């Protein structure tokens, strides 16, 4: 069936998708860097458990994560009810809910590359900073992080790309509300369901082009990132 493409919903959907990926990546950068820094240098006994918790979204089906988050965010749960009563926030079927779900789901994609980058630096740099009287926080901030810029860039790109590509989790938490929770991956599914293949092509082609452009940009920058 031939249907003329309406570009306005596509523009709205892409803007929403990019906004979700951008906000998620920014928040992940702010939380992921300290977390990765701590994991890289900590000898805390329960560190393996925390690492396992962060990595869970990699091995769990998105629908499982989505299901538990849906339960937690629901106004009938204690947490969801507290959010609603205290802050008048409802996370289910909302953009804010999508951001929080994406944060949890993409966390390992930000933390792992940065943690690995930090752990691959010579131990003597960290030890030298300690013997010079500097705290672990200052050591990570001033010595270790500036020397693993490519790892940070990798974390940013993976988180951004992973958030753009989310499907199951977004569907569970956000549903399919145009302009509010309908992101590109869901729009493609929706359009194919309705046999609007041209529109699905437009979404898919744009996603493909965008992903390729991001990767080209990253590889070019990564070559130029020097210490």
């Amino acid at each position, binding site marked *: 069936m031939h249907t003329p493409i309406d570009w306005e919903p596509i523009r709205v959907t892409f803007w929403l998708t990019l906004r979700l990926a951008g906000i998620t990546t920014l928040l992940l950068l702010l939380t992921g860097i300290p977390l990765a820094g701590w994991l890289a240098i900590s000898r805390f006994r329960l560190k393996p458990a925390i690492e396992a918790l962060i990595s869970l979204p990699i091995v769990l089906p998105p629908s499982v994560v989505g299901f538990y988050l849906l339960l937690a965010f629901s106004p009938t749960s204690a947490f969801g009810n507290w959010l609603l009563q205290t802050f008048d926030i409802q996370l289910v079927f909302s953009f804010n809910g999508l951001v929080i779900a994406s944060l949890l789901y993409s966390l390992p994609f930000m933390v792992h590359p940065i943690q690995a980058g930090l752990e691959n630096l010579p131990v003597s740099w960290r030890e030298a900073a300690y013997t010079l*009287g500097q705290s672990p926080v200052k050591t990570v901030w001033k010595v270790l992080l500036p020397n693993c810029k490519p790892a940070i860039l990798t974390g940013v790109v993976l988180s951004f790309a992973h958030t753009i590509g989310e499907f199951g989790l977004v569907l569970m938490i956000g549903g399919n509300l145009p302009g509010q929770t309908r992101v590109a991956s869901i729009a493609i599914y929706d359009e194919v369901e309705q046999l609007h293949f041209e529109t699905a092509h437009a979404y898919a082609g744009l996603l493909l082009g965008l992903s390729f452009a991001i990767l080209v940009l990253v590889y070019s920058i990564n070559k130029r990132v020097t210490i």
Partner: protein
Amino acid sequence: MIDVQLTYPRLFSEGAGMLAIKLQVPEKQLVAVVGASGSGKTTLLRLLAGLEKPQSGAITVQGQTWLDTAARISLPPQKRSIGFVFQDSALFPNMTVLENIRFAAAGSPLISSLIESVGLQPFIHQKPDKLSGGQRQRVALARALVRRPQVLLLDEPFAALDESSGAELRQTLLHLHQAWGTTTLLVSHHADDVRTLADRVIRLEYGKIISDVPVPLKTASQEIIRTLTFDHDTQTWVIGTDTTLLRSSNPVWGQYKPGDVFPLPA
């Protein structure tokens, strides 16, 4: 005085065993720690620095307890007054020479004089990757000393250097040690280091001290001692010749008097 008593299980070149060290180092002494690879030399420095935790033991430095496992005291490296020069320099590649030194003690009035002492003035705005191995170690030495540590720990600082860079760095270290009198432990494989620098040599084997001897000063030149006094404030001998003025904590200087031939380490 540094008073050290440590036990620490580890793997030596001879197999698993126990590092068991009992050592006293008077202030301002430069002790060379020698021994085969895997005899525990570097581990001893790391234990002193607080980079490793011993099974049991105690470290006191000038009356301050850095470690006492019985009393559950173990100061972190940051709280121990140490300078540590690593074999690989461990300079921070994102910082220039000046920034590396400032990182240790921003605003210290010693920075410029130290940079001058180690001959790095022309390179202060260079990043470490633009420096030679010898220059990098001189930066590391300046960085380790800028906080005026009570103890300087040098882990084979000359190991990766060619002969002339090594000789230059030895001279720099000797000059700074004479000027500042920082109590120093120098791990080395190199006989030259011991001959040129050390007041005393301890030899480790399988985690134990198997010999502990002062370095004999041998007459190697005809320079005459012009002045020889003992500085009670710093507990060092001040020896003046026509060409040099040096300080040393080596008690052997008590046997000399002005007019004697100046002995040089051979």
